[in-house]
C-alpha cells in the first residue's frame, strides 16, 4: 500500500518522456537528485517518447511499490490514463514541464508554458526583424504536441505582421543533424532568408552549423527554444540571437519537494503551478547558464 | 497416348527445343536419350506444365491440351519426377510427398494420420525404410530421390515422366524401381524414362527416342538395336571407349589412411566410419564401391578435413603425417575433393565459369595484391579447352550450364590446384555418355601423370572401367580389396550388401 511506509523507506519514481535529449536528462537527474537529497529511494524511468512504454513504466512503478511519481508526460492527452491509473492506486503524481489534460488526475502540475514562451520569442523575433523579412521555421517531431504548442505560440504573434513571410516550414525531428541538412536545403531554395525559428535548441545549433557552412552566419538570425548549455554559450558569443529559457531544474526541484511535503501529510497543492519561460537574448544572457539562472 | 507436335522452346538466346515431334505410347516404357543439353528435361517440363510458353501443340488422349500450370497437368493425369530434386528440406517425408495435394478432414484441417499411413505404404512399396516424419534434409541424396519417385506415384497418373530417376540411387533401389515400372506397364500407363545409364535402358525400355541439340533425331524399338548404335545416334559419331593404360613401374605410396573412424556428432555412439585403413599409390586409380549409405562420402569428407571434430586416426601424405583439420589445410597438403552434389557443394551457381574455376587458386591470380583478370581468363580458357567445357564464354553463369559441363568446372577448379591426390565422389552422376568417357579419359591421363586418384561410385561398370584397385565399403568398414583383374560384378556386390539382412 502506498503512503504508509516510513520516511526513509519512501520510494520516488521519476518517469521522464525521453532521455534522448539533454534537456530531459537534466530534468530527470535533478528531480532524482533532489528526491534522494530528501532521503528517498529514487529511480528514473525512460518512456522513450512512447506513451505505451510510459504505460508500462507506470504499471511497473506501481507494482514495484513506489510511493510517489515525479512525472514528465510524453503527451498531454495520451498520458492521462496513466496518471489516472496511479491515482487509482493511491499514488500521488507530480507533473513536470508538460501538463496532462485532466483537471484532477495529477496531484499537482509544475508546468513550463511553451505556448506563452514562444509568444515572447515571437515578439522579440518581430522586433529583431523590424517587422519584415523572409524566415523559415524548423518544426520538431510532427507527432509531438509540444512541436505545435511552440509553433502556434510563435505564429500567434508573428502572423499579425504581413511584412514577415514564412518561405519554408519543415520538420527536423528536434534533431541537430537533421536540422543542419534541412537548413542546407532550405538555404538553396531561399538564399535570402533573414531568420530561422527552431522548435528547440538542438535544431537551432544544427541550423547555425548549416549557416556557418554556407557563410551566412551573420546574415541569418537564429532563434531557438529550451535554454540548452551550448546555445546559451552561442548567445554569449553572439552566434544565436535568442532562446526561450525553461527552468527544468526549478521544476524538478519543486516537484521533488512537493512529493516530500505530500509524505509529511500536506494535501492542498496548487493544481497548476506555471513556471514562466524567460526570453534569453544577447543583452540579458549574462544572467543565465545552461538550463537555468545564474545564482 | 501423348504426342508432342512441333514443339519449340527458346530461352533468352538459347534454342532448347527446335520443332520436336515425338509419340509416347501406352503400356510401354518410352526412353528419351540424348547428351547433356539435348533438351530432354525442357521437353518434359513442357509436357508437365512447368513451362507454359512454347510453340507447337501437345496432344493427349486425342485432344490438344495446353496446361495452365503443373497442377493442371497433374489433374489431367501427368506426373513427373524432376531431374533436380524438388523437395522442401525442412518438411518431413510425408509432408513433401503430399505437398500441393494434402488430405484434409471434413472441417478442412490436415489429416496427418492418413497422410502418414499412405506415405508408409508408398515407402514400403519402394522399400525405403525411413520414418515418414523424418526431415527431408536429413536424408541422403539417394533416399531423397526415392522420395521424389514416391511423390510421383502418389496420384496414380496416366503418364509418368521420370527424368533421370536413378542418377543418385544404388542398384538395390534401381531394382525396386524397375519392378514398379513393370507393374505400371501392366496397368497400361505411359512411362517416359530419361537416363544416361544405357544398360538401364536395355533392361526396361521398349522404345527409344533420340534428341540431339534440341532436335528430334529418330525413334524406334529397343529390341534389336545395339549399345554402340544407340550411342552413335545420340552423339552423332562413334565413341572409342578407351582401353586401360598400363601402370607406372614402381608403386610409390602417396597417401596412407590409418585406422580412421568417425562418429556422428548427434549420436556419439553411432560410428559412420570404423577403423578404415588403406593406401593409395602414385599414379594409381583406387575405386571405392559400396551401396548408398555405405559411408564413402563421409570417408572422403573426413580425409578432406571436413569432420575434424568427430574424426580419429591418422593420414600420411608423401610420408608427412597431417591432422585433417580443415579443407584449406588438406588443399595445402595437395588433396582435392570433387563432391557428390555439385550444385550444393561444388559450385557457386551465381558466379561465372571463370570465377568458379579460379576460386581455389586466387592466391596465384593476383599481381600486387590485386586480382589479375588476365591470368584468371587464361587459366579458365586453358581448362575450358582442355576439358572441352561447353559454354558460350568464360563469363557464362555456372547455373546456365548443363550438368556435365558443370561437373567439368568443378574438376577444373581442383585440377588448377595441381593436387597430389584427387578424390572424386560420384564423378559422373547425371552426366551423358560422351562427357562420361571424356572424364574417364581424363582420369587415366591424370593418373598417367602420376596423380593418385580415388573414385567413389555406385555404378559397378564405372568402377570396373576406371579403377586399378577396388575397395568395397559396407556400413562404414572396408569389406574387401580386389585388383581390377579379379574383380567381377557379383564379387563386389556380395561384399557390398550388409550381412544384417
Amino acid at each position, binding site marked *: 500500500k502506498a503512503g504508509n511506509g516510513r520516511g526513509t523507506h519512501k520510494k520516488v519514481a521519476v518517469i521522464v518522456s525521453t532521455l534522448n535529449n539533454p534537456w530531459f536528462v537534466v530534468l530527470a537527474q535533478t528531480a532524482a537528485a533532489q528526491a534522494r537529497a530528501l532521503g528517498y529511494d529514487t529511480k528514473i524511468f525512460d518512456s522513450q517518447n512512447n506513451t*505505451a512504454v510510459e504505460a508500462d513504466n507506470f504499471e511497473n512503478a506501481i507494482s514495484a*511499490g513506489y510511493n510517489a511519481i515525479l512525472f514528465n508526460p510524453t503527451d498531454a492527452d495520451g498520458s492521462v490514463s496513466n496518471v489516472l491509473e496511479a491515482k487509482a492506486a493511491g499514488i500521488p503524481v507530480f507533473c513536470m514541464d508538460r501538463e496532462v489534460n485532466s483537471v484532477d488526475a495529477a496531484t499537482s502540475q509544475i508546468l513550463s508554458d511553451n505556448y506563452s514562451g514562444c509568444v515572447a520569442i515571437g515578439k522579440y523575433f518581430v522586433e529583431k526583424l523590424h517587422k519584415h523579412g523572409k524566415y523559415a521555421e524548423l518544426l520538431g517531431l510532427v507527432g509531438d504536441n509540444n512541436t505545435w504548442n511552440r509553433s502556434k505560440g510563435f505564429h500567434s504573434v508573428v502572423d499579425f505582421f504581413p511584412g514577415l513571410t514564412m518561405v519554408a516550414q519543415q520538420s527536423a525531428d528536434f534533431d541537430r543533424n537533421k536540422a543542419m541538412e534541412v537548413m542546407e536545403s532550405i538555404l538553396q531554395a531561399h538564399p535570402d532568408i533573414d531568420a530561422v525559428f527552431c522548435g528547440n535548441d538542438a535544431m537551432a545549433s544544427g541550423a547555425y552549423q548549416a549557416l556557418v557552412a554556407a557563410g551566412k552566419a551573420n546574415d541569418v538570425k537564429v532563434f531557438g527554444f529550451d535554454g540548452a548549455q551550448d546555445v546559451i554559450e552561442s548567445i554569449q558569443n553572439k552566434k544565436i540571437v535568442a532562446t526561450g529559457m525553461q527552468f527544468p531544474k526549478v521544476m524538478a526541484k519543486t516537484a521533488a519537494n512537493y512529493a516530500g511535503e505530500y509524505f509529511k501529510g500536506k494535501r492542498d497543492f496548487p493544481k497548476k503551478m506555471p513556471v514562466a519561460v524567460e526570453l534569453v537574448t544577447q543583452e540579458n544572457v549574462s544572467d543565465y547558464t545552461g538550463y537555468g539562472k545564474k545564482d | 497416348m501423348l504426342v508432342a507436335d512441333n514443339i519449340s522452346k527458346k530461352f533468352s538466346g538459347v534454342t532448347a527445343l527446335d520443332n520436336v515431334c515425338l509419340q509416347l505410347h501406352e503400356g510401354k516404357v518410352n526412353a528419351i536419350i540424348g547428351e547433356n543439353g539435348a533438351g530432354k528435361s525442357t521437353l518434359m517440363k513442357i509436357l508437365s506444365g512447368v513451362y507454359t510458353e512454347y510453340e507447337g501443340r501437345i496432344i493427349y488422349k486425342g485432344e490438344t491440351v495446353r496446361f495452365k500450370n503443373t497442377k493442371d497437368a497433374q489433374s489431367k493425369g501427368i506426373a513427373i519426377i524432376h531431374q533436380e530434386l524438388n523437395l*522442401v528440406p*525442412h518438411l518431413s517425408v510425408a509432408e513433401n510427398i503430399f*505437398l500441393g495435394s494434402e488430405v484434409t478432414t471434413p472441417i478442412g484441417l490436415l489429416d496427418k494420420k492418413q497422410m502418414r499411413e499412405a506415405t508408409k505404404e508408398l515407402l514400403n512399396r519402394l522399400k525405403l525404410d525411413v*520414418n515418414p516424419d523424418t526431415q527431408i534434409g536429413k536424408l541422403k541424396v539417394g533416399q531423397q530421390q526415392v522420395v521424389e519417385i514416391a511423390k510421383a506415384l502418389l496420384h496414380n497418373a496416366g503418364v509418368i515422366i521420370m527424368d533421370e530417376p536413378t542418377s543418385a540411387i544404388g542398384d538395390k533401389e534401381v531394382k525396386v524401381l524397375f519392378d514398379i515400372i513393370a507393374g505400371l506397364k501392366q496397368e497400361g500407363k505411359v512411362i517416359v524414362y530419361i537416363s544416361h545409364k544405357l544398360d538401364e535402358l536395355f533392361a526396361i525400355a521398349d522404345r527409344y527416342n533420340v534428341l540431339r541439340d534440341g532436335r528430334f533425331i529418330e525413334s524406334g524399338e529397343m529390341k534389336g538395336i545395339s549399345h554402340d548404335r544407340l550411342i552413335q545416334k545420340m552423339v552423332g559419331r562413334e565413341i572409342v571407349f578407351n582401353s586401360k593404360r598400363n601402370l607406372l613401374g614402381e608403386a610409390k605410396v602417396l597417401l596412407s589412411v590409418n585406422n580412421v573412424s568417425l562418429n556422428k556428432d548427434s549420436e556419439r555412439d553411432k560410428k559412420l566410419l570404423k577403423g578404415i585403413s588403406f593406401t593409395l599409390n602414385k599414379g594409381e586409380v583406387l575405386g571405392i564401391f559400396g551401396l548408398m549409405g555405405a559411408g564413402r562420402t563421409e570417408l572422403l569428407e573426413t580425409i578432406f578435413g571436413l569432420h575434424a571434430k568427430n574424426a580419429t586416426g591418422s593420414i600420411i601424405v608423401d610420408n608427412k603425417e597431417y591432422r585433417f583439420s580443415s579443407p584449406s589445410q588438406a588443399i595445402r597438403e595437395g588433396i582435392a575433393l570433387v563432391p557428390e552434389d555439385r550444385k550444393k557443394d561444388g559450385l557457386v551457381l551465381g558466379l561465372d565459369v571463370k570465377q568458379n574455376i579460379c576460386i581455389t587458386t586466387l592466391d596465384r591470380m593476383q599481381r600486387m595484391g590485386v586480382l589479375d583478370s588476365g591470368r584468371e581468363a587464361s587459366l579458365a580458357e586453358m581448362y575450358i579447352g582442355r576439358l572441352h567445357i561447353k559454354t558460350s564464354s568464360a563469363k557464362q553463369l555456372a547455373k546456365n550450364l548443363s550438368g556435365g559441363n558443370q561437373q567439368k568446372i568443378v574438376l577444373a577448379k581442383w585440377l588448377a590446384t595441381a593436387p597430389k591426390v584427387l578424390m572424386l565422389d560420384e564423378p559422373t552422376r547425371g552426366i551423358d555418355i560422351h562427357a562420361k568417357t571424356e572424364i574417364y579419359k581424363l582420369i587415366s591421363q591424370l593418373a598417367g601423370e602420376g596423380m593418385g586418384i580415388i573414385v567413389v561410385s555406385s555404378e559397378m561398370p564405372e568402377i570396373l572401367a576406371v579403377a586399378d584397385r577396388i575397395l568395397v565399403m559396407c556400413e562404414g568398414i572396408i569389406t574387401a580389396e580386389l585388383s581390377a583383374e579379379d574383380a567381377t560384378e557379383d564379387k563386389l556386390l556380395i561384399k557390398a550388401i550388409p550381412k544384417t539382412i
Partner: protein
Amino acid sequence: MDAAITKLNYRQYLARFQSLIALFVLCVLISLLSDKFLTVTNAWNVMRQISVNICISVGMTLVVLTAGIDLSVGSILALCGAITAGLLKNGIELPSSNLYVGFTVLGACVAGIIAGSLLGMFNGWTITRFKVPPFVATLAMLTIARGLTMLWTKGFPITGLGRKFSFLGTGWFLGIPLPVWISGVVVVAAMIITNKTRLGRYIYAIGGNENAARLSGININYIKVAVYTIAGVLAAVGGLIITSRLDAAQPNAGTGYELDSIAAVVIGGTSLSGGRGSIMGTVLGALIIGVLNNGLVLLNVSPFWQQVVKGLVILAAVIVDKVNSKNE
C-alpha cells in the same frame, strides 16, 4: 503433439525447450534480485505489456516463414489505431452533402482492422506483382503509413474515446486482462494455421524451397498476399489494443516496433531465410524480451545501463540456445 517424437518435432521441441531454459534462468535471476517480480499483478503486467508485441510478432512469424519480412507493422499499427479512434470520436462528415456518419465501437474497430488488411494486402501485392523485395516494399509502406497517420491526426493524438472502447485494453474477463485474451486467441489461431492447415503447410513450403512449392502446384503469390494481409490485420489488432489501453491514438505510436517483433521472432528460433520456425518459439521470444524489460525496471538498473544489459542478455539467451542445441 501426436505419435512418436520424430527428428523434426524433436528438434523443434528441443529448440523450444532451449528458449524455455533461457526464459527460466532469466526469471529465476530477476526474482532472486527483486521480490516484486514473482507477483500475480506483475505477471499480468508483463503479459499485458507483451500482448501487442505478440500480436504483431505472430504475423511477423508467418511473413518470415515465407522468407519475407515486414517493416511496416509499426506504422500500420499507428494508422489503424488512429483510424479507429478518429471514426469513433468524429465519425465521417461529408461537407458536400452535410451528411454525418457515426460509428459504434464495433464499427470503428472493424474499420480499423479492414484498413490493416488493405495495407497488408498492398504490401503483398507490390511484392508479388512487381517482385519488389519485401524489405523495400514494406520499408516504403513504413514511411507511407506513418505519413498517412500524420495526415489523419494532423499530428495530434486523438483522445477521449470513452469507457466502452477502453474496456478492450484495460478490462478483465474471467480474471484475465482482455489484451491477454486477445493475444492468446491470436496465438492459438496461428498455431492451428501453421500446424494444421494447408495455408500453414504452404507457408513453410514456400519458405523452405519456393521452386519446389511452385512445381507442386502451389499458388505462391496467393499465399504470400494472404500472409502479408494477415500481418496487416494483426498489426491493426495491436493498434486497437494500444489505442484503447491509452484511451488515445498517438501519431507516433509503434515507432520501432518492427525491430522488437523481428527480434522476438528470431530469438524464438525462426530463421530469417524462411521455412523453419514456430509460433510457440516467437511467443517465448516475446516473453523473454518482455520479462527483460520488466525486470530491468524492477531492479534499479539505470536507464543507460539498461540498454547495455538488455543487449547482452539477448545475446546470451541466443548463445545459450545455439551452444546447447547442436542442430546445425
